[in-house]
């Protein structure tokens, strides 16, 4: 029987749909034409321009600072929250779960506005600190959910076993609980980092002068569209970095999997 061509066609069309825009972007970053309407020849000048643009580097620095700080804080808080939710079941547990889950479903624009109003009303100066606080707010939820899922099949009797063998709480947590949760915590932290580094909507509301993160800066560059090709170059670089990161992480996971199994 001859197999249908439909599945293969669907796959290719879907892939094309996904990746054609990215391809266009990558190609245009090497296009000498200013608006990318037609091919004017190969050039690297947009990359040169990018590396000379200090504002971009400043924004990237901001983004990294914010992402690192909010990842660290939200990973610690989210993990603790997840542990408390799974370990000490009470009638309030469902309420707590709901409260932690809430930021995942509340629209970003609402979060951004409410945070902005909050910061203004308490007189919190808008800047990197306010962005960090905002990012931590929603990152905690993601970390808590990921770690909570991991805790669902965590066997608490291994904690009891640790106490039984003479360990104090600190040793039991450091040597038994954290290693067992490590994959969940790492996944939560990675998620928090990605969410923080590319968040636009909330950051847009709570950033102050001079504290633009990369997404906010790119947006303002696009408003003055003369920087268009530079943005393409920047995006292409980000793409390369992202693919490299994904590749490394995949490599590490499979390698670790082989070691354990």
């Amino acid at each position, binding site marked *: 029987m001859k197999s249908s061509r439909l599945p293969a066609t669907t796959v290719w069309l879907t892939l094309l749909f996904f990746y054609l825009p990215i391809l266009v972007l990558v190609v245009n970053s090497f296009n000498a034409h200013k608006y990318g309407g037609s091919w004017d020849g190969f050039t690297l000048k947009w990359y040169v321009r990018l590396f000379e643009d200090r504002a971009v580097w400043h924004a990237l620095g901001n983004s990294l600072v914010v992402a690192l700080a909010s990842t660290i804080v939200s990973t610690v808080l989210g993990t603790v929250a997840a542990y408390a939710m799974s370990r000490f079941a009470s009638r309030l547990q469902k309420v707590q779960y709901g409260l932690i889950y809430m930021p995942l479903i509340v629209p970003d624009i609402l979060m951004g506005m409410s945070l902005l109003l909050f910061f203004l009303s308490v007189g919190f100066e808008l800047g990197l600190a306010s962005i960090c606080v905002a990012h931590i707010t929603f990152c905690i939820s993601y970390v808590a959910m990921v770690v909570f899922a991991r805790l669902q099949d965590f066997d608490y009797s291994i904690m009891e076993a640790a106490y039984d*063998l003479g360990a104090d709480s600190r040793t039991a947590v450091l040597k*038994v609980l954290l290693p067992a949760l490590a994959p969940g915590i790492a996944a939560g932290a990675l998620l928090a980092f990605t969410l923080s580094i590319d968040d636009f909507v909330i950051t847009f509301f709570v950033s102050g002068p001079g504290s633009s993160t990369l997404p906010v800066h790119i947006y303002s560059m696009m408003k003055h569209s003369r920087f268009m090709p530079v943005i393409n170059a920047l995006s292409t670089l980000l793409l390369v970095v992202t693919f490299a990161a994904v590749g490394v992480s995949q490599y590490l996971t499979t390698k670790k999997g082989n070691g354990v199994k």
Partner: protein
Amino acid sequence: MDGLTFEGITKQFGDLKALDNVSLSIRQGEIFSLLGPSGCGKTTLLRICAGFETPDSGRVLLNGEDITGLPANRRRVNTIFQNYALFPNMTLRANIAFGLQVAKVPKKEIADRVEAMLQLVQLEKHAHKRPNQISGGQKQRVAIARALVNRPQVLLLDEPLAALDLKLRQRMLVELGDIHDEVGTTFVYVTHDQGEAMGLSDRIAVLNHGVVEQVGTPPEIYEAPRSSFTAAFIGDTNFFNGRVCEIVDSEYCTVEIDGLEPRIRMFNDKNLRANVPVDLSIRPEKFSIHRQPPDSAQERNTLRGVVENVIYLGSHTKWWVRVSDEYLISVTSQHSRFLLDKDPIRWEEEVWISWHADDGYMLERYNESDESLVALPDTEVQTLEDEPE
């Protein structure tokens, strides 16, 4: 005083009284089983001993020292958990070394003791593996080694064989016994499986609804159950209700069973008086089954009946014999010779079952623990309050 003692332990979970004034004393070096159905409080008692639960009242004494308030990590007591609770991120060697490392034992000594334990449980070759790379029986042995390497004064085992299949369970039971012989630590073994408890223990405490029903050696528990609960929970039995009829001599009496024709001759070890109501328990293997009326010896009881059901069980056969409207008696008999038991008794045959007067056992009706039921202490009288220890 050596050993482990529970004094009046009571523990309540919400409305449920898990343990009700439980007192037990476990001798140094013995294998002591806590046996009972699920929810009887046996695991709670074990967790109180390990330090994971605090009793509402009562004390736990280890070698005379009150450890009731001592946290789990400061007790010289180690536990083997039902699911083993091995640390998944550590190798077997690291699992076993954990307790010693926490106790800051010198590295050289840790290495030696862990190696000795690996040898004891025969896992030297697997020491570098992680718990998810080994079988259930091996996990069990790692759990034992991990606990014993700390040289605990008491080893607590919480249904350690429940997760294993039957054959492996039987082998591990023998291994547990061997390991106990080797190390001599007190074992407290929690189980709902009477076979495990009987096979392994020096003594057994039968628990039901948070109360100790009986403490005794396996033969005592099996042959002389104090209550109908113990009689029914341990092994198979037939119950009869009746009343003492006539005191024959200092040892025997006759008992009239409601709805059963001949009076039964019974060993009157409790010196009950005439007219006292009694419950009898007679184990299926105590009966003999015959096609012809057996010779009526004075010390044997005989009942006539009809076989209602026959179950062939390999090593033995079980007959259900209807002896009256109320009583369907289960009788078992071993096969002595392979396929040579001539003409086995079949369904609907008329049979006689007989048993020796010593082979039935009078149970105590514990709600009627009234002194007036018992004859005055002219001979050796056991009162109901006596602990058969």
